């Protein structure tokens, strides 16, 4: 490209500095805020009022922070799971469905398998089975990918829908409970197995502990264990992995199993901690499975960075609720931020691989 006497040359970089890598999320968020402000202004909404509503209501009050932490739990769990799968070069778009499957497992335990058993047995069972179920649900696409070359983006996406339909079948059918205002749902879980919350908030702390531990443990797994090494080699260079004797099937299955399992845990948390009954699937998973993709990407695939990243995105979600109340805007408006941030991070990645230089043309 030539503008007057200057060239714009795009060269391949040889090094990616970690500073650049860390800079991208910040700059992306900033740019998104600017663009969103423009969109608001265009629609006749004062951006400053909107941002005040989002940020002050959510980050500025104690109540807001508790809401944020409550939403952080599923985001962090799913986000960490997605980091594991993305680092193995497996695009798991199925976290949404894996959440639901986890919730189904918890429902089965609480209402049908162990209905009148002591909570000290039931609650761990719910988490355990939720982990297994979510993990198994994610393992199927992994096997299909290695054995039949089925693109996991598509298979995990389809599995989301199948999970949703199974849930609908159950709540309209065998698991139908007393309905409120005509909406289908199961019976309420017995109160004894409701997850304990920090009083006055919606924070079901057992799951929070699980989420934080998962973040730390996963980072340790990825960077310090043999298995993590295999995952990383496989994700970075399948040819070298083959040469190293790493089993593609083993790595894919384990990565997806862990990824789905963590999402399953999130599902257990949501249902046993917040809803206390199985209802229409979207109400349980609420798009956390997709928002977690942003968490994973924003944290540049580092599990520890996922903690602040999920905090920030949870803040946006809570802000969305606030915006609905104060400015009477539809809650989906929050998705504008989500979308813009993700676009900026993805598009901005090219800057880590290429460098833009402005050179003077010598004639």
């Amino acid at each position, binding site marked *: 490209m030539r503008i007057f006497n200057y060239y714009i040359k795009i060269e391949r970089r040889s090094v990616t500095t970690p500073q650049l890598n860390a800079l991208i999320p910040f700059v992306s968020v900033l740019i998104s805020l600017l663009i969103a402000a423009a*969109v*608001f202004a265009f*629609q006749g909404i004062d951006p400053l009022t909107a941002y005040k509503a989002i940020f002050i209501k959510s980050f500025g009050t104690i109540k807001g922070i508790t809401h944020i932490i409550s939403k952080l739990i599923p985001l962090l769990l799913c986000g960490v799971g997605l980091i594991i799968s993305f680092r193995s070069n497996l*695009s798991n*778009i199925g976290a949404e469905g894996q959440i639901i499957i986890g919730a189904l497992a918890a429902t089965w335990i609480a209402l049908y398998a162990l209905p009148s058993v002591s909570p000290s047995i039931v609650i761990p069972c719910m988490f355990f089975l939720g982990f297994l179920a979510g993990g198994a649900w994610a393992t199927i696409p992994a096997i*299909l990918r290695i*054995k*039949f*070359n*089925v*693109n996991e*983006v*598509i*298979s995990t*996406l*389809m*599995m989301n*829908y*199948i999970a949703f*339909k*199974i849930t*609908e*079948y159950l709540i*309209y*059918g065998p698991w139908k409970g007393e309905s409120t205002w005509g909406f289908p749902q199961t019976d309420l879980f017995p109160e004894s197995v409701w997850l304990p919350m920090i009083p006055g908030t919606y924070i079901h702390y057992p799951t929070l502990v699980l989420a934080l531990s998962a973040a730390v443990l996963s980072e340790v797994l990825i960077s310090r264990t043999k298995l993590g090494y295999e995952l990383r080699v496989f994700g970075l260079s399948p040819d070298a992995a083959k040469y190293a004797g790493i089993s593609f099937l083993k790595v894919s299955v384990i990565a997806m199993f862990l990824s789905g399992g963590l999402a399953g845990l999130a599902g257990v948390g949501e249902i046993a901690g917040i809803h206390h009954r199985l209802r229409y699937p979207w109400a349980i998973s609420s798009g956390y499975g*997709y928002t977690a*993709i942003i968490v994973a*990407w924003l944290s540049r695939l580092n599990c520890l960075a996922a903690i602040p990243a999920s905090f920030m995105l949870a803040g946006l979600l809570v802000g969305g609720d606030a915006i609905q109340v104060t400015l*009477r*805007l*539809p*809650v*989906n*408006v*929050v*998705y*504008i*931020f*989500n*979308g*813009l*941030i*993700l*676009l900026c*991070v*993805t*598009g901005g*990645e*090219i800057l880590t*691989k290429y460098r833009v230089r402005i050179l003077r043309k010598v004639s």
Partner: protein
Amino acid sequence: MSELMVIPLLKVAVRASTSLIFTALGEVYAERSGILNLGLEGIMLVGAVTGFITALTTGNPWLGIVLGGLAGGLLALIHAVVSISLRGNQIISGLALTMLGIGVSGLVGRKYIGISLKHRLPVTPIPLLKDVPILGPLFFDHDLMVYFSYIASALLWFILYMTKIGIYIRAVGEDPSAADAAGVNVFLVRYACTIFGGFMAGIGGAYLSVVYIPMWIENMTAGRGWIALAIVIFALWDPLRVLACSYIFGILEALQYWLQRYGINPYLLGALPYLITIVVLSIVGASERLRRKMSAPSSLGKPYSREERSV
């Protein structure tokens, strides 16, 4: 007696599928050129809201549909820039677009919820064809957009297989470096197909808000964008098969409740298309021969750059 009730149900199914057909046809072209667009849901919504507002303010539903398409194309342009020129991850970019589309359409459409259109597209039965037993009322007694969907499928099938444009698109999708060496402008073909895909998805969305319902409701696509993606794969990237598969999906959905009386659970039935899509992909992937003939375009999802030399 209840059998006769089926025909009107199926008729509704045909109309309902039309929005899917436009969207899926557009995505076929995008994917055939190698670009995976997961943003269809968001693009359809943007097309729906744009189409509705245009139709409401101008009183002209056709203008609404066209502008809805243009809005969709514009949104797809963003995906194209990120995926093609910036070589970003297509999956992520597409998902981002879905979120953006949902958000923007919700914001822009907030003042128009629940208003119903006065100037609508009339039902125009085709004189002789509509009297054909069974097929007549089923396929030839609808608004013009439904007929356009038939024509579009056939036309796009013809273009893909029988013209030079189609060869360019398929070449770029299968082997971009070979197409490049043959002198084809890979970037241009991919941009064109992606924007076209967005245009068609915008029309698909606009059809819902301008013709099918017709009104604007938040999130009115209700997952149709994702269904369109499944249809594209289920139909193995062929425009005519897309027409057939859309109807299968539409009919299954329409008959869900009717089939209940035969003991078939509607929800499990609803899961069937997604299950079959996975099964179809597995079968095609497992057989070497089928893989050659019917699998996804080889470069689907992978960015292309010309001077990649390894030391």
